[in-house]
C-alpha cells in the first residue's frame, strides 16, 4: 500500500513487532496520540545499550562509562538537531509534563509577581494548565485562557486585547490540540507575545512526533515534547529551550549530576544542559529516543506529515459516512494534526471504544485530560482516533466498519 507521500505502510508496519504479534486479531491501533508503538530499531538500541554499554554516565573513568556517556550525549545531539537546536538547549526530563513543570517552577516561581498574568488556552492538556495554576497560587499570579471558537480555533483577537491590557508574563500554548487536532499558529502567537515581552512556551507533544518542528522557526522560548508519542520509549521527555532562557533560570530539581561544586556553605551548578538534569538520567531511554529520531529522520518528517495529512483527510471523509457522526475541530485536514475526535448520537464514547475493541480496533474514549475544553464543547467525553506512520487506509476502513456495527448494536 503506497501513499502519495511515498510511505510504504506495509513495509513500515513490518518494523513494529507489536503490529505483527502472534495470535488473535490484527491490531488496528488508532491511539497514537496517547502513546505510539515502537519499531525494532528503538527496541534494539535499548536492548543493545543494556547488553553492551551499560554504565552510569558522566562519572566513571573506565572505558565502559565513557561509551555509555558517549551514547547518551550522542542521543542528545540527534534529538537537538531534530528540533532545530543545540545540546546546550536540550534538557532531558521524564516526559512533557515534567518539562512544563520545570518551566513553571524554575521560571515562574522567580519571575511571577502578584497580579501578573499567565496565558494558556481552553484547549490545553491538563499538563499545561495545572502546573501554572499551582505556581500562580503561590505567586499571586492569574491564569487566563484563550477561548476556543466553534471551529476549534483559538480566539487570537482575545489574545491581542489581553496582551495590550494585562501584564502578561507567559504565553504557554499547545502546538496541536490532543482533542480537536487543531494546529495552532504558534509562530504568530510567539511574535505577538514577544512584542509585549512575554515568555512563549509551546507544548509540542502532539506536533513533534508528526511534522517538522523547529524551535528556531517557531520563534518560541521553550518547546516541550515526550519520547513515547514519537516511536520512542516512555520515561523520557524533552525541554528544548533557548540558552538565554535556561541560563537565566535556577535549577528545578537538585542532586547529583546537576552540580559544579557542593560544600556545606552552598552549591554551584553544572553547565547547560546538565544544570537541569539531577540524578542518574534515563540513559537507555535517551538512547531509545535517539533511535526513534533516526527512524523518523530516515522516513523524513515532511513525508510523515504528508502521509498523516492524507490519512486524516481520508479518515474524516470515511467517518462522515457513519450516520449522525460529528467530527470536532477544523474541517480542513490541512489545519489539523492527527487526533480526530468525534461523537455518535446516543452512543457514549465509552461504549464506542468497548464495542470496536472486540474487532481489534483501539481508540480512546474520555476527556483526554482536557476537561476545560470538554466544558467549552459541552460534552463530558469524546471518542478519539489518532494515527502514526504505521497506519493506513485499511485501519480507517476497519474503524468505520466497527463504528457502524457499534451504532447498530446500541440502537438495538
Amino acid at each position, binding site marked *: 500500500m503506497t501513499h502519495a507521500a511515498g510511505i510504504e505502510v506495509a513495509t513500515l508496519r513490518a518494523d513494529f513487532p507489536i503490529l505483527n504479534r502472534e495470535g488473535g486479531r490484527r491490531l488496528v491501533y488508532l491511539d497514537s496520540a496517547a502513546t505510539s508503538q515502537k519499531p525494532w530499531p528503538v527496541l534494539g538500541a535499548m536492548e543493545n545499550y543494556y547488553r553492551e554499554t551499560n554504565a552510569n554516565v558522566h562519572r566513571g573513568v573506565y572505558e565502559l562509562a565513557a561509551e555509555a556517556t558517549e551514547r547518551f550525549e550522542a542521543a542528545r545531539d540527534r534529538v537537538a538537531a531534530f528540533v532545530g537546536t543545540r545540546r546546550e538547549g536540550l534538557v532531558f526530563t521524564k516526559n512533557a509534563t515534567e518539562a512544563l513543570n520545570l518551566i513553571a517552577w524554575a521560571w515562574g516561581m522567580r519571575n511571577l509577581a502578584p497580579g501578573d498574568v499567565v496565558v494558556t488556552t481552553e484547549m490545553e492538556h491538563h499538563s499545561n494548565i495545572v502546573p501554572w495554576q499551582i505556581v500562580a497560587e503561590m505567586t499571586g499570579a492569574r491564569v487566563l485562557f484563550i477561548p476556543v471558537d466553534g471551529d476549534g480555533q483559538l480566539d487570537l483577537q482575545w489574545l491581542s486585547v489581553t496582551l495590550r491590557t494585562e501584564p502578561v508574563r507567559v504565553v504557554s500554548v499547545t502546538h496541536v490540540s490532543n482533542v480537536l487536532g487543531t494546529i495552532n499558529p504558534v509562530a504568530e502567537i510567539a511574535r505577538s507575545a514577544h512584542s509585549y515581552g512575554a515568555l512563549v512556551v509551546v507544548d509540542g507533544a502532539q506536533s513533534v512526533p508528526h511534522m517538522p518542528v523547529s524551535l528556531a522557526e517557531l520563534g518560541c522560548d521553550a518547546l516541550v515534547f515526550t519520547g513515547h508519542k514519537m516511536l520512542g520509549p516512555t520515561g523520557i521527555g524533552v525541554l528544548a529551550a533557548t540558552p538565554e532562557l535556561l541560563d537565566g533560570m535556577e535549577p528545578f530539581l537538585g542532586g547529583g549530576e546537576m552540580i559544579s561544586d557542593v560544600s556545606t556553605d552552598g552549591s554551584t551548578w553544572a553547565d547547560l544542559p546538565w544544570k537541569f538534569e539531577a540524578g542518574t538520567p534515563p540513559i537507555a531511554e535517551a538512547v531509545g529516543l535517539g533511535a526513534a529520531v533516526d527512524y523518523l529522520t530516515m522516513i523524513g518528517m515532511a513525508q510523515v506529515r504528508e502521509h498523516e495529512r492524507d490519512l486524516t483527510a481520508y479518515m474524516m471523509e470515511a467517518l462522515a459516512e457513519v450516520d449522525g457522526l460529528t467530527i470536532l475541530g477544523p474541517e480542513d485536514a490541512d489545519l489539523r494534526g492527527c487526533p480526530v475526535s468525534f461523537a455518535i448520537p446516543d452512543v*457514549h*464514547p*465509552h*461504549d464506542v471504544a*468497548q*464495542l470496536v475493541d*472486540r474487532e481489534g480496533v483501539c481508540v480512546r*474514549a*474520555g*476527556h483526554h485530560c482536557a*476537561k476545560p475544553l*470538554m466544558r467549552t464543547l459541552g460534552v*463530558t*467525553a469524546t471518542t478519539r482516533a489518532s494515527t502514526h506512520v504505521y497506519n493506513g487506509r485499511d485501519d480507517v476502513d476497519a474503524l468505520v466498519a466497527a463504528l457502524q456495527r457499534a451504532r447498530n*448494536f*446500541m440502537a*438495538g
Partner: protein
Amino acid sequence: MGLDDLYQQIILDHYRNPRHRGHLDDPGMSVDHQNPLCGDQVHLDVTIRDGRIVELAHAGDGCSISQASASMMSEAAHGKSIEDAHRAIDNVLALIHGEAPADEDLLGDAVALEGVAKYPARVRCALLGWMALRDALPAPSHAEKGAGVGQQ
C-alpha cells in the same frame, strides 16, 4: 458476540428506558458523583422516611453501563430500608469484583452487573450510582435510629 456478558439485554433496556430518571422536587439528600477517569456523572436525589428510602431519582451523563447501573440501583433501592440498601451495595461491590454471587432478592435486575467483573476498565462505571447511594445514606449503624443523619 463476545460482549454479551457486559451488554446484557437487561442492561441495554435500563440504558434505553431508565427507571427513576430525573430529579425530586424536595429531596432529603442530594449527591453528585463523577468518575475522574472518564467524566461520567451521576446526580442522585434521595428521600428517607422512617428508615426507608421512599423516593429517589437519578440524573447524569455517561456510558450505558454507568447510566443503566444507576437505573437498576434506583429500582433496587426504592422502598428498601437503609440496612437493606447497604446490604445491596455490599453485594454489588462483591459481585463486580467477582467475590460473591448475586443476591437476586436484594439486587433485582442489577444481578446483570455480574458480567462487569470481566471488564476491569468498566468497574468504576458500574459502581458510580451505587457509590452515590452509599454517600446519600446514613451509615448502617445509624439506620436503626431512623433517618436522622444527613436528612431534612
